């Protein structure tokens, strides 16, 4: 039973998109403030075309959306997609934290704690 709203292939695209440090940086900037592709490109020592490619990967994963303003392409981060992706790891994190607490309880019981 799958309880959240992304399918496996969509989620795979999300994680592939997040696997690259430049893309993570672009995403972080776009979430903080929407901006043009050319403004983004100014932050990196790579060609405009290369930055555009990274933006396209992020867009396919629905992590960002693009719209036109005059002659510029404006990029905006899509935080809700990111939340779903990170949510999978978060869930397992919660499970393991719970397990560690329960192990501590089992160990405490052995020491004869009466609590």
């Amino acid at each position: 039973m799958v309880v959240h709203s992304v399918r496996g292939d969509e989620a795979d695209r999300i994680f592939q998109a997040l696997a690259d440090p430049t893309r993570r940086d672009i995403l972080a900037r776009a979430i903080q403030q929407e901006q043009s592709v050319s403004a983004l490109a100014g932050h990196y020592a790579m060609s405009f075309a290369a930055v555009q490619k990274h933006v396209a990967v992020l867009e396919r994963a629905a992590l960002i959306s693009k719209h036109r303003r005059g002659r510029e392409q404006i990029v905006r981060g899509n935080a809700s997609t990111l939340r779903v992706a990170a949510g999978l790891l978060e869930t397992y994190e919660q499970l393991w934290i719970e397990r560690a607490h329960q192990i501590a309880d089992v160990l405490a019981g052995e020491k004869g704690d009466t609590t």
Partner: protein
Amino acid sequence: MTVITTTKDAATLTLTLVAEFDADPDQVWEVWEDPRKLERWWGPPTYPATFTRHDFVLGGESRYFMTGPANQTPRGWWRIDGIDKPHRLEFANGLAGDDGEPAPGVQPMAGYVTFEAIDGGTRMTAITRFVDVGQMETMLGMGMHEGMTQAISQIDALLAPAPLELEVSR
């Protein structure tokens, strides 16, 4: 006091938990080796686990089921891929079908656990590595999804100040 830290790496689908316990490594090892102790912590509180088999030797396998609040019984299995008492454990953890045997077509997750003696206790490091997101979702179907709503609200906090926090750990 139990000190717990976790690290998530979305790029490699890896979760690392480090916990320090006030007990020596032999005692901490025991909560993995003894199935009666293991079932007191393996399942989430609302899904207690019952191990019907637990061959805690190299190549040995385990079978377990969990009992959910509506009496659903998701099943799982382990296979021990590496073991060095009381220092290191490697195991595969997969989903089982209604017959309790490994479900075909679902890859297991890999667990790597180390136990180090530290002053007055044990540092246990448990690394869980997933193959892909589809697998993460399938395994979550084993009754662990209640944490999801809670988890997503926590990510709001994570995203708010600095989205870069997502790229934790290397």
